[in-house]
């Protein structure tokens, strides 16, 4: 929106009685002994400053709320998109890979098999994409007001959780249709969702920081995500690699996707693979957070 400057030159002086001028104001507040904020040039690696993040928790809430609200306000189909994207991809993949190519699916009906992978992958890919572009898209905020910049990419990922939850509704319908019974394995589902979210935050915040400096990221990211899709056991089971499958575990999404299938369809967990994926996720998240903090100080100057 354009803000015009009405009467800027014509009426600049505003007549407030000079008496109101503060020659004698009320008693000044008591000041703390130590500065509340001490601004110094930072070293190359800086602390995460979790206290600041906590202070601004309400802003995180409102940023997520804004993203969700705006998304559903602007699209005609609204919530339906959250289901259509994985649903139609699943139908196409079921036809091509399940029917035509006859890819094995570890004994689970191929549509179910593919949907579990697509569900988590769609969340991850959308979250990383919007998170990766979030900082550049918030340039006006970054140059005008202070708040922990980490909140922006984190909020973009969390906003994606709404779609993720909606897509689970379709999964419930599919499971009823194929008469798949729930097992105690389902208890792992929240853990897997948390890990997927953390992984998306890690990759997203890292990419968002790099994106500020190198705008190439915006173009490279969709490409990388597409390659990553094929490197993850979404349309094929991890078992087709047989005794090389541990290699696949170096892709943290691989362990998580296999984990979703185990949790949802009552198949045995591949614990070593899941442990490796979880470890990598946490390592990546930590690395990304510190990298972000290191690059953060330059954001306002180069964005």
């Amino acid at each position, binding site marked *: 929106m354009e803000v015009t400057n009405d009467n800027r*030159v*014509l009426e*600049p002086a505003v007549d407030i009685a000079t008496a109101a001028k503060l020659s004698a104001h009320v008693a000044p507040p008591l000041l703390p002994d130590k500065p509340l*904020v001490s601004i110094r*040039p930072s070293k190359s690696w800086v602390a995460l400053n979790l206290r600041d993040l906590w202070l601004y928790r309400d802003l995180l809430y409102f940023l997520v709320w804004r993203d969700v609200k705006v998304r559903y306000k*602007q699209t005609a189909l609204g919530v339906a998109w959250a289901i259509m994207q994985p649903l139609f991809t699943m139908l196409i993949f079921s036809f091509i890979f399940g029917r035509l190519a006859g890819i094995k699916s570890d004994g689970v009906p191929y549509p179910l098999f593919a949907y579990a992978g697509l569900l988590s992958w769609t969340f991850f890919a959308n979250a990383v994409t919007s998170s990766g572009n979030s900082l550049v898209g918030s340039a006006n905020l970054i140059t*005008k*007001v202070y708040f922990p910049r980490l909140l922006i990419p984190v909020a973009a990922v969390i906003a994606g959780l709404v779609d993720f939850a909606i897509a689970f509704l379709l999964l419930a319908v599919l499971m009823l249709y194929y008469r798949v019974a729930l097992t105690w394995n389902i208890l792992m589902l929240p853990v897997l969702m948390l890990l997927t979210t953390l992984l998306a935050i890690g990759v997203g915040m890292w990419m968002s920081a790099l994106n500020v*400096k190198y705008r190439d990221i915006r173009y490279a990211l969709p490409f990388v995500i597409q390659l990553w899709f094929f490197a993850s056991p979404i349309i094929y089971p991890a078992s087709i690699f047989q005794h090389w499958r541990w290699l696949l575990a170096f892709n943290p999404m691989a362990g998580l996707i296999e984990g979703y299938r185990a949790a949802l369809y009552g198949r045995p967990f591949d614990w070593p693979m899941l442990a490796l994926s979880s470890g990598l996720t946490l390592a990546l998240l930590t690395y990304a957070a510190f990298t972000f903090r290191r690059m953060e100080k*330059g954001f306002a100057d180069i964005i």
Partner: protein
Amino acid sequence: MQPIIRVENLGKQYHLGASQAPYATLRDTLVGAVRAPFRRWQSRAENSSNTFWAVKDVSFEIAPGEVVGIIGRNGAGKSTLLKLLSRITEPTTGGIDLYGRVGSLLEVGTGFHPELSGRENIFLNGAILGMHRQEIARKFDEIVEFAEVEKFLDTPVKHYSSGMYVRLAFAVAAHLEPEILIVDEVLAVGDAQFQKKCLGKMNDVAQQGRTVLFVSHNMGAVNQLCTRALQIAVGQVKNFGPTREIVTDYLSEMFKASSGDLAQLRTTRDEGNIRFTRIELSATGGTTLSFGQTVEYILTVEADVDMDELSIGSSVFNLSGHCVGSLVTREQFAVAAGNTVTLRLSVPGTNLAPGSYYASFSIGRGGHEGLRQDLDAIIGMPAFQVLPISDERDPVANWNPNWGAVVFREAHLTTE
């Protein structure tokens, strides 16, 4: 007394051209996606000498409860100083200690989302400015009342008029309750009525014992609101002291540098499609006029696109920054794309008393009927002096400045 803000040897260095990201074609980009990091590092290394200090060796202290005006020409480093104080950008050298919570208002409506309603934007904007949810909820009614937008609370702000938008945005910001409030020229928006309200609000804030830092080109407002003024020139503190002295010094400097760069005196933020390229006084005596002499200005205006129904607005200010008088021309003019026009503006019968003045100009539309909208505005030139000499026998030779800036020379006294 212990200061609430302490700034020591503060410096901020920028790399020239570092903010440019030239990406032309998709093909370049795909190739660049692989090579770009290395190319960037190389160019950064080559340009390492190509730096400048936007702020350098700045030190000052501000006591709690003070209202300090920061003045200086465009490009002097005021905005960088505010960005450093608000933690938006990090200093290269030195440091700042803040003994209180800071709320900064560098722009009105930061983070407003056009698709969201007024109600929703109040919460979003409040959170962005650092307020908690309960705090916003508590002040919600007060904010709505201040902004005068009750009827449109559930309308998306994209349908708001610019006046409503600004009112709402300022209302949220005005209800921040930090110990230190940093404000950048936000009062320059909105209509006169609302400006008055904003200044009043800032006055309240200051009277509650809070500290205010206030950047403005409006010397009148600085004079009225601020106890002390900090003058910045070329990134350094040039003067810091009682407002009246600093403002007078600053304004009288404009005399010496009256032929200065227009860009430094421009108050419209963004380069528009039309602008003044030259403003000068057409006087035989240089920058001095005798009392009663018609003031004539020669204005050169350049436009990028075809524009018509334009008029010129102009005001005259005295050395304390108070506006003495204004005009909007009845005559309109047009400029064709890519052309420049030279205009002569004569202002007879001003009756300006002997003293020093400076002028301001705007290119805009409206003003006689409806609100005036400025497309380009320059404050601070040309500066001129009215000498206490007159062609006729006017009583100006011993004019006392306390008598004001206008001589009522048509006055008549008769005996009945």
